[in-house]
């Protein structure tokens, strides 16, 4: 489960996922899919901020 992970690893993985989602959003032509990807990235930014604080 996630809370068993080493905090630094989880943060690094979250940041990697944010970058992946943003890249896919930038390449996406469907506005609804793009919004879905961008907002998933936003949610992970909230998580990354929580992990960093």
């Amino acid at each position, binding site marked *: 489960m996630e*809370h068993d992970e080493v905090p630094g690893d989880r943060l690094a993985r979250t940041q990697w996922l944010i970058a992946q989602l943003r890249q896919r959003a930038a390449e996406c032509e469907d506005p609804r899919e793009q919004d879905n990807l961008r*907002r*998933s990235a*936003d949610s992970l930014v909230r998580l990354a901020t929580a992990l960093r604080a």
Partner: protein
Amino acid sequence: MTAIDEIHSALQQHNSGRHAAGVVPRTLVELLANHAPAALSISGAGQTAWNGQVVEAGEGILGLAHWDGTLHLDRECILDPLREMYSRSGLIQSDAMLTRYREALVTMLHEQSHFLGPSGATQEAARQAFKQPGSRALEEGVAEAWAHAHLDDYLTTLGVDQVAPGIDQVRAEPSYQAFVPAVTLLTDDLDERTGLPAGETLRALNRETAEGQWPLVVDLVYCSSGLPECVPPNREPVVRLRLENTLRESFRSLEDFEGHPRGYEAARSKSTARQCIDRLNTEIQTAERYFQAPTRTPDQATALRSALSGLAPPKTPAQSRPTTTAGAEVTNRTRQRIQPTPTPLRGQGDG
């Protein structure tokens, strides 16, 4: 003055406190001042953790409720459409433009949902709980499902239906498709289990921070089952923990579907929620049989202990406010969370 200058000016004016709270908004500045009190009012939450500040989002962010209480909003998709909406106040506009405004407003309401909580809740406790398994999926799914379900009330409260006539006739599609269908199925199931009015579990969860959301779900599940009648008080915490771990693990797995096409995310979200509810029912039935059985043979006891041990040992749940092990008291506490005292519309920065 260019649109960019107008937005910069509006944010500067808002953040300096030179704005009118408690009025029906007629400008972007007035909307920024009044949008959080309106969210508090329609939600019935005890407080908002919003610190009153709004900043332009960077790094490709659409909307973000920062843990320090600051609201981050994207210029292109949120601030600029809303500025434009007020510049064309009362005019007939295309469905495409109305949909753009609606999407901006639902994102704003979604972000405010993250700030809502019961009186006395802290952002630090919410932040700690948000990191626990399944918390992010539940909080995001609740915020998005609730924001879409209550958007028309929000728009009416803010007078947006007068500013952009016809905005209640267009629709914006929910995002977070990995989470929203699962949250909808779970909260509908909880409404049915508990006999609450349709949508009440979703509204109650929206009034909680991450700290209280899963404990509230477990309260509803536990108290609507036969468990309070058969589980000894000293075993109740362990049974509750098993239920919470089952729910959390299912919702944590929803994160694996993020980033896929919306249709795939939604389908997997639904199937995962159905499996989650099935597992929950099995857990409840197993525990009810175990604690109701007056006598057990050694073989039966071994089988039940094995079933109760599940796939993983119980883990410590997210830090939550003090709970009681007395079933009746839990029921009363849950009732208070389901039926909060109505919150009056208050000025910006309250709470």
